[in-house]
């Protein structure tokens, strides 16, 4: 849609010019409240090459990214199978669901103080809260995914005497995978929010730490750099997951077609 693209680009350009005008040229916004473009670039240069809040930008990004991916992976590995089990097995559902319903309303951010009490300010506490943030959507959507499978499919598999392992790998997981991916997208967003919060509360490295130190130093340029970095990372990881999803689900569709033929 070229019209949409042109207008979008024009908007962004106008905003940047406006930003420059009100901060640098007209001085309508005090530099202590919001940084000018030059101040932002200077802050970027500062954190990129000289380092800020205990490391360079690359080090902070690597650290945050590593924690998000670790917590996210642990959550998937534990949450998706649990959700599948709950969707598939009535007894497991009846046994686990009430406990889950009690824990679920507690927002992931509320686990941060407990995680710090248990594991301190290091990586362990971050992974724990990210795990928690990503765990709940993983479980719920895997569970819902199994529930969307049509009964005849399950009955056909049962009638043909499909062995359990093959049933899981070839029926349960593929059929539930669209919902599983929806869950993963929600999980990923929750992971980022939680990590930034956890790092703001207390950390040695990471983008949240950069934001925290910049806030204490009253350094608006650095705050903006930190926020932009968080946004770019959130966008990039979401995009990456989307690509993974497209690949996984296209395989799925092909498999379904092959099955029909």
């Amino acid at each position: 849609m070229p019209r949409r693209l042109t207008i979008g680009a024009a908007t962004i350009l106008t905003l940047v010019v406006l930003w420059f005008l009100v901060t640098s040229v007209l001085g309508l916004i005090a530099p202590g409240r919001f940084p000018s473009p030059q101040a932002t670039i200077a802050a970027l240069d500062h954190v990129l090459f000289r380092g800020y809040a205990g490391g360079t930008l690359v080090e902070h990004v690597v650290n945050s990214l590593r924690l998000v991916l670790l917590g996210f992976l642990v959550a998937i590995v534990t949450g998706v199978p649990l959700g599948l089990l709950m969707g598939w097995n009535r007894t497991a559902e009846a046994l686990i669901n009430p406990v889950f319903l009690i824990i679920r309303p507690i927002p992931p951010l509320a686990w941060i103080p407990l995680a710090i009490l248990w594991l301190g300010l290091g990586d362990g506490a971050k992974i724990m809260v990210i795990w928690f943030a990503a765990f709940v959507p993983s479980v719920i959507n895997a569970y819902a995914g199994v529930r969307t499978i049509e009964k005849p499919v399950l009955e056909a598999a049962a009638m043909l005497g499909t062995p359990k392992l093959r049933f899981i790998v070839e029926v349960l997981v593929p059929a539930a995978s669209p919902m599983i991916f929806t869950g993963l997208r929600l999980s990923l967003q929750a992971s980022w929010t939680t990590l930034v919060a956890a790092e703001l509360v207390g950390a040695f490295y990471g983008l949240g730490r950069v934001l925290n130190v910049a806030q204490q130093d009253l350094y608006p340029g650095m705050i903006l750099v930190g926020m932009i970095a968080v946004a770019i990372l959130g966008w990039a990881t979401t995009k990456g997951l989307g690509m993974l999803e497209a690949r996984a689900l296209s395989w799925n569709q092909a498999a379904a077609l092959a099955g029909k033929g």
Partner: protein
Amino acid sequence: MPKRIDFMRSVLLGFLGLALFLGLWHGLSASGMVSPLFLPSPVEVLERFSTLLERRFAGATLPAHLAASFERFAYGFILAAAIGIPLGLLMGWFQILDEIVSPIFDGLRFIAPIAWVPFAALWFGTGIGGPIMIIFAGAFPPCVINAYRGAKFVDPRLIEAARMLGTPNHRVITEILLPASVPSIISGLRVSAGLGWQSLVGAELIVASTGVGYLMVMGQANVSTTTVMSGMIAIGLVGLALDTALRFAERMIQRRRGLEV
């Protein structure tokens, strides 16, 4: 008959699951394998919860902290709805506005609400203004997105019919477009309330000096695990109550519309 047995069985299993969970928790802390400072028993947490209802901790009783939190939440949430819903509707109705605002909105969306904390503190202080801005940042996007979807995906036949009958523009808006987007708006409000409440907790962990989040931070600083857990319970209960109330509103509106049609 078998259905009833099934129901009884799942209720029993549910209680069994809860009992197992609480028993394991209690057992772990009672056996002395885990220090009670680290993992207090459920009974101790409940005792602490009931003392906090009357005794002051971190400057106020638990209900007073909750009231402070809820006041912030209400302001932020109402502000997000009051700005977000009209914006979303206008974006859905007027393509040019959609094309101008969407690129900005898409860029801002990837910034985790919590990442606004430094600017919020810088611009509005840490009393009530800063946290309100964080809640706003969390609750705003779902309001916009759902109002937009509601406005955009109105059945075109309805609009065409109205146009053909010569309905004036403002009546098309008040009598077709607005009512048609209500269900989507309400479900957006539910998502908003959840995200806003969670953002509030995050904001209070980092910047506030009253509220449940602050209570938990002080509990953490005093190594009072029972206080932290009591805070988590309170947050979970309020979040659950909010969600239930909005769910109820959603159902009521659906039912009323069902009667009208």
